[in-house]
Structure formats: C-alpha cells, structure tokens
C-alpha cells in the first residue's frame, strides 16, 4: 500500500503529508524500499543494478557516477562492482538491495524484514548499516518479526497482530509498561510441577515445555531460582520479545 501497488481499502494514507493516490510519483521519488525478497536484476552487474535503478529516478549519469562508488563503499561491495548478482552471497545481495534503495537519496527508507534468512554476521552488518543510515537523518520504517532487531534499531515500535494495533512506544517504555523487569526461564518437563508453590508476586507463563517466571523484584526472583535444584534455569532482563508474546499470546496462532 505504501508503494501504491495495492489500492487501500479505506481510510487515509499520507506520506510526507501528501495523499498517496494523488502524489504517488513524487512520493516514490523520495522513498527507498528494501523488499523482503531480493529482486536484483540478474542480467546486470552489481554496479549496473545501481545505475539502471538510478535511471528510473531520472538521476543524471554524472551524479550516478559519483554516487554509486560511495554506495558500494558503504555496503562494502566496492571490489564486487563488476560481478554478476548470482555470484553474491545472500548477505551481499541484501546489502546491495539496501544500497539500491539509497540510490535516490530518499527521505524515507522502508525495510521489509531486512535480516530474514541471513546468518549472524550478515545480520549484524545490516544492523550497523541501518544505524549508520539512521544517524544520517533519514526516517526508517522497518517491519520485522524479530524482536531483538526492533529493540536494537527502533526509536518507536508499533506491535500489530492480525491487523490490530496492540501497543506503541519506545522499546524501553513498552517493556516497562507491559512487563516486569526480570524473567527466569526454566526448561524441561519437570518445570511444570513447580508452578503450584510459586510466590504470589511472580507471574508465570508457559510455552511448550518451557516456563517463564516474571518479576520486578530481581533479588527475590534470583533467590527463588537458586532454590530450584537440578533444573536448568536462565535469568535475563525482559525484552520486547516478552512484551510481544504477552500481548499476542503464546502458542501457535
């Protein structure tokens, strides 16, 4: 809908304060998109992918000639400029797609699940790039199923489930608002037996054969966790993942 590729069914949709149905072209001129599935053109080289894409924005050859090496440098693909797309790894392709989305120096950058299917190194590389772009002052709209990603990268998070807005705020505030500060995770079948004699101030949540005990009283929680003998328990601070699961419910939906 943001791209004007599927018509909205109702309501108002404005980008940069302009109605998308009326000003689609000028909105696209100032927007960059990284789609969920890479759609780089396999007929062209790395550098050509950027120059051809730039030409769709009617950017001059001269400005592209200086911009493309900069972008390749930024995503660390300078030495691959003349390579075919099929020779790039998944992480490299994603970085190139990110560079392509920046070719028109957009004000708004839309990232649709940018790290899905990437290995940890590639994911961290994308994250640091996103940080870098964020610092340069661009607005970034990022969708993700990956709560760690949202927590690391986002200033403002909106949790949407089945098309309904469940919560909105900064990651820190969302965690504060919806969750206790600490959680102990206990794994294994035996874990289920201990729920009966749980202190009242603790909140307990179950998922599969894992048990999550929440509390804001770190000291008491840890003391209690130590009293569990012969069980593997893991203590950590709560995060957006806990907020998400709390709001949307555990188990398969």
């Amino acid at each position, binding site marked *: 809908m943001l791209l004007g590729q599927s018509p909205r069914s109702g309501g108002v949709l404005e980008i940069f304060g302009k109605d998308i149905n009326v000003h689609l072209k000028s909105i696209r001129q100032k927007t960059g998109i990284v789609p969920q599935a890479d759609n780089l053109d396999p007929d062209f080289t790395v550098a050509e992918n950027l120059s051809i894409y730039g030409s*769709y924005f009617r950017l001059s050859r001269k400005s592209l000639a200086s911009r493309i090496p900069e972008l390749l440098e930024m995503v660390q693909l300078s030495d691959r400029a003349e390579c075919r797309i099929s020779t790039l790894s998944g992480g490299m392709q994603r970085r190139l797609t990110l560079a392509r989305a920046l070719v028109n120096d957009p004000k708004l950058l839309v990232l649709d699940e940018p790290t899905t299917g990437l290995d940890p190194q590639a994911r961290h590389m994308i994250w640091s790039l996103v940080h870098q772009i964020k610092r340069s002052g661009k607005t970034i709209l990022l969708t993700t199923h990956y709560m760690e990603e949202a927590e690391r990268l986002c200033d403002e998070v909106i949790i949407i489930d089945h098309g309904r807005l469940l919560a909105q705020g900064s990651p820190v505030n969302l965690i504060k608002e919806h969750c206790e500060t600490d959680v102990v995770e206990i794994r294994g079948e035996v874990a289920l037996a201990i729920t009966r004699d749980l202190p009242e101030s603790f909140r307990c949540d179950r998922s599969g054969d894992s048990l999550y005990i929440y509390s804001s009283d770190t000291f008491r929680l840890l003391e209690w966790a130590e009293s569990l003998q012969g069980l593997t328990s893991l203590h950590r601070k709560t995060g957006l993942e806990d907020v998400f699961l709390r709001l949307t419910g555990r188990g398969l939906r």
Partner: protein
Amino acid sequence: MAASLLLHFGEPLLYLIGIGYGLGRFIGEIDGIPYFTFLASGFIAWSAMNVASMESMWSVYTRMVPQQTYEAILATPATVDDIVMGELLWCGTKSLVSGSAILAVASMLGAVHDWTAIFTLPIIFLTGLCFAAPGLIVTAYAKAYENFNFYMTLVMTPMFILCGVWYPITTLPEPVQRIVEFLPLTHAISIIRPLVVGVPIENLVVHLGALLLFGAISTWIAVALIRRRLVQ
C-alpha cells in the same frame, strides 16, 4: 546473447538455405519470384514475429514472476505504462536485429532484388511491435511457462504455415483465405515481399493500416491486463 542470436537468427538461416536452395530447385518460381527470394522475404517477417513473441512471453514472464524485476521498478517513479512501453520497444528492437540480419544474409546470397528492401526495416520493427503486444496479453494471464505452448501451437504455428511464408495465400481454399487475410503476419509479408523483390506494393494502405490498428488495439489491451496483474 549468443544463444539467443543462434535461436532467432541461426534457425531461420538454416531453414532458408536448406529449404530455399534444396526445394527451390524443384519449385523454380512462384508468382514470377524465385523461390529462394519468396522464402527469404517470408522468413524476415516470420523471424520478426517469432523473436517478438518469445521475448514478450518467456522473457517478460521471467522478469515479472520469478525475478520480480517489475516489483522493484514499480517502487520507483516509473509506472506500469513505462514498463510495458519499454518491453514493446525492446521486442521491436530485437525483431529488427534478427530481421535485418536475415535480410543481410539473403542479400549476400543474391535473394534481394532491389534497394527498396531497405524500407523493410521499419516494417520489421512494426511487425515486432504487433506480435509483442499479443505476447504480453498471453503473459498477463500466464501461470507457468507451459501456458505459452498453447499460444505457440494454436496461434503462431498456424500463422507460420498459412500466412504466406511458404506459398501464396491464394493457394488456400477460399474460406481459409478470408480468415488468413485478418492475420497480421499476412499483412507484414504483403508489404515486405514486394520491397525485397522490388515490385510495387498492392494495397499498401490496407496492409499498413491493418498492422497499425492491430498493434494499437493489442497494446491497449496489454497495458490494461499487465496493470491488473501487477497492481493488486
């Protein structure tokens, strides 16, 4: 690129030399035209049809579905109309390349009788456009590459056989002639053949008008259908 050239240029050339020389010896002349020249002029039009059809079906489908190239383009200020127009022009250009290559070889082999053959070039381009648009229409409906076989066997092959590439359409039974006269390949050949032979074109306005009308209508439909396919 080399593989595509071999298919679109090499194949007609083999046909032309093999059949034109071999069969031509027995046939001699048709309508006062040496069979080799008759066949060469038909093959120029056939090649334009073939190249544009293949490109507008297999290649366009590849860019539209597995590669999602159009989705990427549509995130820029470029529109569906731009994409369709770009594809049509590319199909016309490819037709022009293969058609003129056959013309060049035919001319080296002595099949081209008049310099008016140079005017076949815009007609080859137009023929390419005329067949690119229907190809896009088929692609707009296609769910898989196999779907194109229907169009190949039920539309392209009959035209290749009936529209005057191999023999004059006047040889056909009267009712079949009436149908064949509506097909664009017939009109393309009716213009290209006299230009290669160097004789006046009969009913030029009718043939040219038919190609333009056919191209315009099918382009209009193609734009609408491709838009419906891309914008959901």
